[in-house]
């Protein structure tokens, strides 16, 4: 992998940073409507050539502001573009998130990539095709219905043909998109709806350069950082002189509480880092709550209460039975297998950062602000890293690389975090407490549902000053802005806090915690994981009291047909109600529609619990998912399987450990996750096709339902309910002896 940032055409350069609109004459088509009405991210970047460009020699480039995170978005975007352009996938060169080349699509997060970028690319591609077919019709003096398009060649019924390259002239694609496009109907798909093999996998299984970690720029040097041992620790002193004389050391950086070393060779940097860490003297503070009392501590914090929903039906008869329960979730790690890494180069006053951030544009703003540079002088290019599952150390490592490259102009600097640095410094998935209370009648019909959650925000991503960890350590430190509660349709900590069941009264309150004992941010699915776990556990508790089968209980209170479809399909394929359950085994079911507006997902599973040890193993899971129009069925299955297993790992094994001063989960020994011994025997994913429906995204649908189903299966196996995540062996044994 090499840097190619100087080989940009003027045109590409002009596309950067919003300069596009003033760089070219406005070529609005008659009737071109207001940008906001355009589909997907076309509303943010309405020009067709922000998404699709075709060279005179016919080479096709497709641009997306989204990033490959291992979710397969590259392949899906190529399929969508190939479908509407009527070309083969191999004919397309895909360019992903790059502040100089692609549209600003903010973060690659929230299962939005196909919905935002896939929709934009699809519509832009269809409109480009239509324009080129129109051109061909003019050139050939034929009506459009006498033309056919395949492999980027437009052929007439009289044998004449023109390729796309021959038809693209000047700025003909530099026009604003129209609100509607001649989209290919699903029954004529040749690319979409098929399991095109992932385009990134061959390099990944043969040792090709596939990750930012694999980049080697000419003259590159290696950096390592030394972080404070605990949050809020201040540096009393460090003998940087002793380190600067070590072999290969080029520079030791000390600015406030910020420490780093730069060396010629990587292992020299590692050795210098260890020495510097030994020599650094820190003043630490004991300000963390006792871990064993975390739930009570969170509930005792000052909170700003926000009403997520308050739906009251005057005709409701609430019923006569009442149930109440509290659930908790520990802080959890993103736990990328590859610790964060970034490269940066400052040359001629321009800074380029290669990063596995989920948001090149917000990251660029934050880095520019940190370095007091104009935004236009900073370019962030996404290069794949190890899977991140949300806001992990990526952005902070990018900031480290930027800071260090800034200190060493002209030299490319590579920063690689160590394992313990990732574990100790990533922003965790927030600890949460939830409490549910329901009033229901003898038939189990829930008339009144009250639900509260205690949580920090689930979003402290870069953009605003002080969001990058290195910024907080510099002598001229940036202070993070106080967090504000904000209730939105997609939700944050309150994501999926409103059950999608048809209860007459629903009241949901977010006790929004501003004080953040441990730094937290977005972990895949945000609050949905814990809220769905809580809601679906509680639904089973009510079903048990009402003595109704859990699947039947859900269906009775579920009106939406697509929700009912996934529940019914998962139950049917699992053989719900027909399976023989061995002793110490249990089955469980759960459902949610992600964010209450995206993919529908239902999970049924079977677990085995070992009574002597309290060890839980998921044996089998059946999942039904409806994520709208399908681009790549195997991609959806892969994401759903992965989401399920990851959620199982969170639920059974994972809690960030800390004492009153430090986080003590520093590696895989102190923060165990799923290993092969606990991998299920089988997982089945059933994808429901919804031709012609919008893309709903598939990356985060399974996490909540998987946790709910697992919790319900454990309760079914041991006859006692566990309401605290993770289900440690100790907790399982304690529940069994209750």
């Amino acid at each position, binding site marked *: 992998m090499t840097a190619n940032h100087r080989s940009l055409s003027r045109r590409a350069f002009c596309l950067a940073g919003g300069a596009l609109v003033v760089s070219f004459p406005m070529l609005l088509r008659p009737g071109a409507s207001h940008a906001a009405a355009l589909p997907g991210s076309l509303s943010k970047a309405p020009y067709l050539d922000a998404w699709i460009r075709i060279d005179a020699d016919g080479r096709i480039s497709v641009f997306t502001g989204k990033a490959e*995170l*291992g*979710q*397969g978005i590259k392949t899906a975007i190529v399929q969508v573009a190939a479908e509407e352009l009527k070309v083969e996938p191999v004919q397309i060169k895909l360019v992903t998130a790059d502040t100089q080349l692609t549209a600003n699509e903010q973060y690659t997060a929230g299962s939005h990539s196909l919905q935002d970028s896939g929709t934009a690319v699809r519509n832009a591609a269809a409109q480009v095709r239509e324009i080129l077919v129109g051109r061909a019709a003019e050139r050939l003096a034929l009506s459009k219905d006498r033309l056919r398009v395949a492999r980027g060649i437009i052929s007439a019924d009289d044998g004449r043909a023109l390729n796309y390259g021959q038809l693209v002239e000047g700025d003909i694609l530099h026009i604003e998109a129209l609100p509607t496009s001649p989209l290919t109907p699903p029954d004529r798909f040749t690319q979409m709806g098929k*399991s095109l*093999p*992932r385009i*990134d*996998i*061959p390099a*990944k*299984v*043969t*040792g*090709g*350069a*596939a*990750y930012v*970690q*694999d980049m*080697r720029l000419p003259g590159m040097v290696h950096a390592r950082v030394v972080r404070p041992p605990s949050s809020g620790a201040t540096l009393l002193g460090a003998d940087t002189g002793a380190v600067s004389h070590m*072999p290969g050391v080029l520079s030791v950086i000390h600015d406030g509480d910020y420490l780093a070393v730069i060396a010629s*060779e*990587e*292992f*020299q940097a*590692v050795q210098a880092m260890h020495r510097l860490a030994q020599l650094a003297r820190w003043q630490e503070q004991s300000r963390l709550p006792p871990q064993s009392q975390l739930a009570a501590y969170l509930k005792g914090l000052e909170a700003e209460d926000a009403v997520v929903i308050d739906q009251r039906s005057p005709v409701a008869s609430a019923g006569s039975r009442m149930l109440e329960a509290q659930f908790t979730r520990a802080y959890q790690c993103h736990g*990328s*297998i*590859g*610790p964060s890494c970034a490269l940066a180069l400052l040359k001629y006053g321009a800074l380029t950062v290669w990063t596995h951030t989920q948001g090149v544009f917000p990251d660029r703003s934050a880095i520019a602000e940190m370095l007091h540079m104009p935004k236009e002088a900073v370019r962030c290019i996404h290069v*794949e*890293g*190890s*899977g991140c599952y949300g806001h992990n150390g990526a952005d902070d490592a990018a900031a480290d690389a930027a800071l260090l490259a800034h200190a060493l102009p002209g030299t490319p600097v590579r920063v*690689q975090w*160590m*394992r313990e640095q990732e574990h100790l410094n990533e922003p965790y998935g927030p600890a949460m407490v939830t409490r549910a209370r329901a009033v229901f009648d003898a038939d189990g019909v829930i008339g009144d549902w009250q639900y509260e959650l205690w949580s920090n925000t689930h979003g402290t991503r870069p953009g605003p000053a002080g969001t990058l960890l290195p910024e907080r350590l510099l002598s001229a430190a940036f202070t993070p802005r106080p967090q504000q509660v904000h209730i939105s349709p997609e939700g944050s900590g309150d994501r999926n806090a409103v059950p999608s069941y048809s209860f007459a009264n629903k009241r949901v309150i977010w006790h929004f915690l501003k004080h953040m004992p441990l730094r937290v941010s977005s972990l895949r699915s945000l609050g949905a994981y814990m809220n769905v776990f809580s809601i679906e556990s509680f639904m089973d508790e009510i079903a048990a009291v009402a003595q109704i089968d859990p699947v039947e209980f859900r269906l009775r209170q579920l009106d939406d047909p697509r929700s009912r479809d996934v529940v019914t399909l998962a139950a049917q394929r699992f053989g719900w109600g027909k399976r023989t359950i061995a002793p110490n085994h249990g089955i469980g079911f759960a459902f949610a529609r992600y964010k209450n507006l995206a993919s529908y997902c239902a999970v049924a599973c079977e677990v085995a619990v070992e009574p002597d040890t309290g060890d839980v193993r998921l044996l089998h899971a059946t999942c039904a998912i409806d994520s709208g129009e399908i681009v790549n069925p*195997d991609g959806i299955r*892969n*994401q759903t*399987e*992965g*989401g399920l*297993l*990851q959620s*199982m*790992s969170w639920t059974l094994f994972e809690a960030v450990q800390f004492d009153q001063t430090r986080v003590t989960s520093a*590696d*895989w*020994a102190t923060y165990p*996750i*799923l*290993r*092969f*011994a606990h*991998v*299920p025997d*089988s*997982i089945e994913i059933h994808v429901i096709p919804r031709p012609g429906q919008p893309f709903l995204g598939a990356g985060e649908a399974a996490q909540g339902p998987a946790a709910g189903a697992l919790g319900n299966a454990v309760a079914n196996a041991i006859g006692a309910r566990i309401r605290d995540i993770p289900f440690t062996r100790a907790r399982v044994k304690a529940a069994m002896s209750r």
Partner: protein
Amino acid sequence: MSLTLNVNGTDREVSADPQTPLLYVLRNDLRLNAAKFGCGLGQCGSCTVVIDGKAVTSCTLPIMLLKGRRITTLEGLGSPQRPAPLQQAFIDMQAAQCGYCIAGMMMRAHALLMSVADPSDAEIRAALEPNLCRCGTHMRIIAAVRRASRLAHKSREDAR
């Protein structure tokens, strides 16, 4: 200090501190991408390579111990143009999400398949136990190893 390492069947002269873990030498001196830095502690297996037929974590192994040893990395099995059965099996099963752990998984599987041509699921799980995957690709990894065993068997049959 100069030292000769036998990597993927070729003797390679490297000049590095003898304490340097093999992983850094593979990645930086020999410019091989497959073995990945994951933990530096031998806990996750993403740096796994095969040395004299055994899967080992290259992040904790200083090069001074490796004189005369035969080191195989994923690059030594095949290429995108001519993938080995194991690589083809991982492509066929689409056994990757982010893929960062996959090279290590494959080398662990490679060592297994060298000693057990037709491993059971239990043997595959036991062999892969030291390696971590965070994306939850486990089911596909197991299926790919199973398939690799079949593909290798078939290519041995075809060669007869």
